[in-house]
């Protein structure tokens, strides 16, 4: 049972992260102090949230390039709402953020499901549209820290059991999505639809509708991340999280999610995000020139894909008796 839950790929990735941490520790022991690790995790939480959503979408043979734009638009809307009505309590803000994100995800999903437009085209289009809408509603203006109300900014930072709420949201999402993926019909349908869409139809699964749900969930996660992002960094403007969509895809790929659909796991996506998070946080600390950062994460992606492809290569069948015994 345990063997099935933690595949070899994830163990390798976990090993890579541990080795990376050990390596950093030799140059800067403070980095692996529990407090700092917690802060690295906290810093990676938005990436984790988005990677979970993206994983589901990729599992169903789709891709969502609009997550970062969705995040930014949701963030801007709640920030402007906070400025206009500082009294609106955080739970209401959260509901609004999730709802907005969900609606945007739902729109992507509808275009993919009902009009059967290729996912990459849909989300390429909605990515620019969502970003553009931010500009239109904000007139390009920033919402700054001092304009936001204190409770609005305090929520992601509030500490519960020593960890900020932001981290707890990510942990909660990991648990919920894990249950969703392994223990519900919809979760298994995501795998089925991506693994073999044709067979999914025969198993009574509506492929388009499953993809629609994937986008909707990804949208909801992007929405909640949108609020957490603007409140944590205490700023909202058109370009926040610009280009983040590709980082999110990269986290999934490093985590072993197959871009062809059907293969991937919650733990994998989590580890992929953490891996990138550790690299991003460690480089400035160990005094690697910031100019190396981009090339290093690019290299990491390529190596991860190559390793995953090797791990996934189908063994082929064994016809010869001799070979079977040898194998």
């Amino acid at each position, binding site marked *: 049972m345990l063997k099935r839950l933690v595949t070899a790929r994830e163990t390798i990735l976990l090993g890579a992260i541990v080795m990376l941490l050990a390596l950093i520790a030799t140059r800067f022991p403070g*980095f692996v102090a529990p407090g700092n690790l917690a802060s690295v995790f906290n810093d990676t939480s938005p990436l984790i949230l988005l990677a979970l959503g993206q994983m589901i979408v990729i599992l169903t043979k789709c891709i969502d390039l609009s997550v970062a734009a969705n995040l930014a638009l949701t963030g801007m809307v709640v920030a402007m709402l906070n400025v206009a009505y500082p009294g609106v309590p955080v739970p209401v803000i959260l509901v609004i953020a999730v709802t907005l994100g969900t609606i945007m995800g739902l729109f992507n999903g509808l275009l993919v499901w009902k009009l059967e437009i290729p996912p990459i085209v849909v989300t390429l289009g909605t990515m620019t549209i969502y970003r553009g809408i931010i*500009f239109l509603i904000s007139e390009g*203006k920033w919402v700054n*820290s*001092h304009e936001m109300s204190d409770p609005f900014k305090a929520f992601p930072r509030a500490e519960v059991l020593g960890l900020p709420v932001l981290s707890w949201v990510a942990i909660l999402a990991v648990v919920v999505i894990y249950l969703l993926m392994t223990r519900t019909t919809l979760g298994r349908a995501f795998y089925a639809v991506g693994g073999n869409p044709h067979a999914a139809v025969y198993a009574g699964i509506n492929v388009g509708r499953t993809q629609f749900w994937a986008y909707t969930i990804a949208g909801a996660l992007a929405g909640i991340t949108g609020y957490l992002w603007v409140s944590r*960094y205490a*700023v909202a403007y*058109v370009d926040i999280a610009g280009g983040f969509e590709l980082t999110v895809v990269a986290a999934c790929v490093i985590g072993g999610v197959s871009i062809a659909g059907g293969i991937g796991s919650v733990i994998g996506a989590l580890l992929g995000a953490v891996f990138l998070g550790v690299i*991003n946080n460690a480089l*400035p600390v160990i005094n690697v020139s910031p100019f190396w950062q981009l090339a290093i994460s690019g290299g990491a992606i390529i190596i991860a894909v190559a390793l995953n492809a090797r791990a996934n290569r189908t063994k082929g069948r064994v016809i010869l008796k001799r070979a079977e015994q040898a194998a």
Partner: protein
Amino acid sequence: QDMRIALVVKALGIGFFEAAAKGAEEAAGELGGTEIIYTGPTDTTAEGQIEVINSLIAQGVDAIAISANDPDALVPALKKAMDRGITVISWDSGVAPEGRMMHLNPSSTELIGNTILKLAADHMPDGGDVAILSASATATNQNAWIEAAKAVLPNYPGINLVATVYGDDLSDKSYREAQGLMATYPDLKAIIAPTTVGILASCQAVTDEGKIGQVNVTGLGLPSEMAGCVESGATESFAIWNPIDLGYAATYIAHELAAGNAAAEPGASISMGRIGAVTLDDTNTGAMSDPFTYDASNIEEFKSIF
């Protein structure tokens, strides 16, 4: 209307430039018969500004006053504008001399360099470590100020500049860089961010790390945005010139040049209306005024202005 002046900014939506646009309108009102086209790309790229410049050339504006995202890449496009008879000046962040007639510095580079260092040093009687968090690595004005600050470092014994990092004028990146600085240099006493995005993000990072009082954030920021930081104590003081004045001055100069009331040549003195006159040095560069320092004593007064 007989004169159209384009105020091209690094990116739309940044508070600093919005304030400058206000100043430009003010100048236009004063001068009369002048229309301001406030424009710029949505993200801080040279390619985006070139497209904007091309469309301004096509519209045959009379003058372009630009705050550049890249000092070199804009040169060919701006040269073309000048070839078509358009007056081109740069302000705030400059363009290489061959791409403009003159450049208006908000203040003198040396003065700014000294000011940002002094702001930090003033609150560090015993000396200690400071770090600089800049905008993008390609921002000319930032780099010039940092160079100037480094040049006067020997005048501040005990102050130790440990690192220069880049937040790319992205708040999340700046935030993370600031966090990294505090993790790497536990004894850090001050973060100097000569950029409005960077100073805000650093302030937030210091607040979140619970290091108010330990790490002082200073640099260049807008009073309206910095009010919270000063209030919380994360920032003791910071400096900025008046962006409204800067937009006003740039517009005024552009108008004077385009109208033929003045010529951009070394040693020339060009009127900046209510602000006075600017005198050009041998690279046709002039400085508007000194930076002004804000702290708890005067922030209330200015935070509603810009």
